[in-house]
């Protein structure tokens, strides 16, 4: 039987889909496994990957976006074999230990013990708040829709916890990641440029302007350079109801850009 490329892709999607969906739901792993996995993790993995799973640059175990370990079996195989040529050594774990470790990793390394409980509402309703009354697309972007002046939220559910998303909605300055802080630079000729910080080192900084233009600045060439700790985003604490906020959180948490 021959398939067109699109048919083949669809078949592949459906073949993989159940596993993907299952892994998207931490509830499939028992609390006991996750707890046992935490002990395996802290004894073997945390040394490099850190307690929050981001100790190895470029790898974030919490997000589940592990290109070499799309499935639980692949994750277990990777842990068993290690990754030759990298710092990832092979680990010999019992099947119980491995089941726990996989559960712990897939559950986002357990819950953040400091995170307050967050109510998660209805994602489709949250979407209509996001695109309607919230006017969120005036600054943010999801996929191909919206503005580029605020952080792109296409995968926000994969990179931030529900608690952090909720905090950003009600206390944008308190929840703002430092890298996203608004910056203002004055060049020697007096021209001013403002934008959102994307990347910075000791000597240079890379920003995106409200118009979506990418600009790289050399700090010593600037007359003035300020980073504001205050987020330009309005708080929705008083303008949206608790239910609206719960729906918004549900929608944002669902945005994962294909991440597991």
């Amino acid at each position: 039987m021959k398939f067109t490329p699109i048919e083949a892709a669809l078949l592949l999607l459906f073949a993989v889909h159940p596993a993907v969906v299952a892994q998207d739901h931490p509830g499939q792993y028992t609390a006991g496994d996750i707890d046992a996995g935490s002990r395996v993790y802290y004894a073997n993995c945390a040394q490099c990957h850190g307690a929050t799973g981001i100790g190895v640059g470029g790898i974030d175990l919490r997000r589940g976006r592990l290109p070499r370990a799309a499935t639980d079996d692949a994750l277990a195989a990777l842990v068993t074999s290690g990754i030759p040529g990298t710092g990832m050594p092979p680990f010999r774990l019992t099947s119980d230990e491995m089941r726990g470790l996989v559960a712990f990793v897939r559950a986002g390394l357990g819950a953040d013990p400091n995170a307050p409980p967050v109510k998660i509402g209805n994602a489709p309703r949250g979407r209509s708040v996001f695109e309607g009354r919230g006017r969120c697309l005036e600054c943010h972007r999801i996929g191909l829709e919206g503005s580029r002046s605020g952080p792109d939220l296409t995968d926000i559910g994969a990179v931030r916890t529900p608690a952090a998303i909720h905090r950003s909605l009600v206390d944008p300055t308190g929840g703002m990641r430092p890298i996203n802080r608004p910056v203002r630079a004055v060049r020697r000729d007096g021209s001013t440029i403002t934008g959102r910080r994307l990347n910075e080192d000791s000597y240079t900084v890379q920003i995106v302007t409200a118009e979506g233009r990418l600009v790289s600045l050399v700090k010593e060439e600037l007359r003035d350079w300020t980073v504001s700790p205050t987020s330009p985003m309005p708080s929705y604490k008083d303008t949206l109801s608790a239910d609206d906020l719960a729906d918004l959180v549900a929608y944002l948490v669902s945005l994962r850009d294909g991440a597991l």
Partner: protein
Amino acid sequence: MRAVTALGCLLACTIALAGQPSGDRLRNAAAEPHNWLTYSGTYAGHRYSTLGQIDPGNVKNLEMKWMLQNQVFGPWESSPLVVDGIMYLTQRPNDVLAIDAKTGRIFWVYKHPVAPDFKVCCGANNRGLAMLGDTLFMGTLDARLVAIDARTGRLLWNLKVAEYAHGYSVSLAPLVVKDKVIIGVGGGEYGIRGFIAAYEPATGKEIWRFNTVPAPGEPGSETWSGDAWKSGGGSIWVTGSYDPALNLTYWGTGNPGPDFNPAQRPGDNLYTNSVVALDPDTGALKWHFQFTPADRYDWDATQVPVLVDTTWRGAPAKLLMLANRNGFFYVLDRVSGKFLLGKPFVKQNWASGLDEHGRPIQTPQPPGATTWPGQQGGTNWYSPSYSPRTGLFYVSAWENMGGVYRSQESVYKPGGNFMGGGYRTTPAVPDAPVPPNIRRPTMNNWTDAAGHGAVIAIDPATGDRKWTFRMYDLTDSGILTTASDLLFTGGRDGYFQALDARTGELLWKSSFGSVQMLSGPITYEVEGRQYVATIGGNVLAAYALRDEDTRRR
């Protein structure tokens, strides 16, 4: 040109007379600054050179003369040796390269066949070589010591140091003292019992061994309880120093095991997190000083002990200086081990101070609260530098970076991780990214708000900062100073920088890309030209002045 030729001839004559490095040459390494004969350049651990062709006036004209693109990926922590125009260094996992120090071209490569199931906590790291006569010495990830013919790259001997399957490894550059090759073992995260040992250069026969964790009945065993000493840690993973006049060799020791749970090893846990002064002929312990007793933070005292002869409170003194991972800078009398000064050089809240003997008055933070410094410490294994000209001690520091530690019971299994808990770096705002410990990605999405790197110049007389060169990202780079009062260092921003060693002013920089620079820079001279070499990412690069700048001199 004539002057250059004459100097070249002079060097050639020296080479012909001197042959390969002998014990005498190693002892007098400072007298031949065109070479870099030991891990830190000289036995004193200064990473300081009397070369001065590159100076604050012309450093802006430095250009890259050659680079070596490593095809072995992963953090590259090696610090090269240079002996009479030939550079020797290691690359992952346990390869040795002989390189023309003038062109970067390779003479030979030796590949030690590492057992694939070696156990190291933090990557397949090796920090370099030692050389005596025509022989190079390298420790291996599978806990062996190998001797290699420096002219052919052929193996001379290969001996087992310890059981790698039980978590032992050798990652440091050996130190040759007189007629002995001295090494120590890594494995502080695997419940090893650490030791320093000396071997016969010709045969590899073990001559002595000093256990960094005493057995019951031995001095220091009163600081342990039960069987905890058997998995007590005390790893050795950075090269020590040596004072020929006192005939003492000084080594910093690693954390106790398990790392984060002192409840499993009640007591001070000697000689972990200490500096030990040993007789290099016998391995006998002359004195010890412990920086962090009963450690719960993984604060190895693995920093290079820096030996300085100067005046102290008006009288000539033989000092040992060490900026410790625990965030304090220390000055000790290296004859007796007596504590002279200790002062925090970064933010810390784990001790309310040091008592008159230098013992910390510990103030453990409540569960869930942040401790400063964090698990990687105020500094770590990165080579510091001391300039006898400025009298300043220079250290790569991690400032304002804290972490939350947690303890839990760990069961010791030979070769298994033995951590006793864990830690997490405290983010600038909840859930924000924090700097990665191991490998820096290409973009900085954590910012300096979570802590930043710096070069700090410390006045040893007071422990106070003379100046601070603040970086945006962290730094794992070593520091080199020279007789022209230049300071060279890298950083995670991926720049190789030259600072004025007196003021900290930036004089020159070169971009390596956004990579970790994990090497201690070195300097050497070939045919009248001074080079500065360092490693960033997978690149080893050597810089020197332009031809016209060299000729003018």
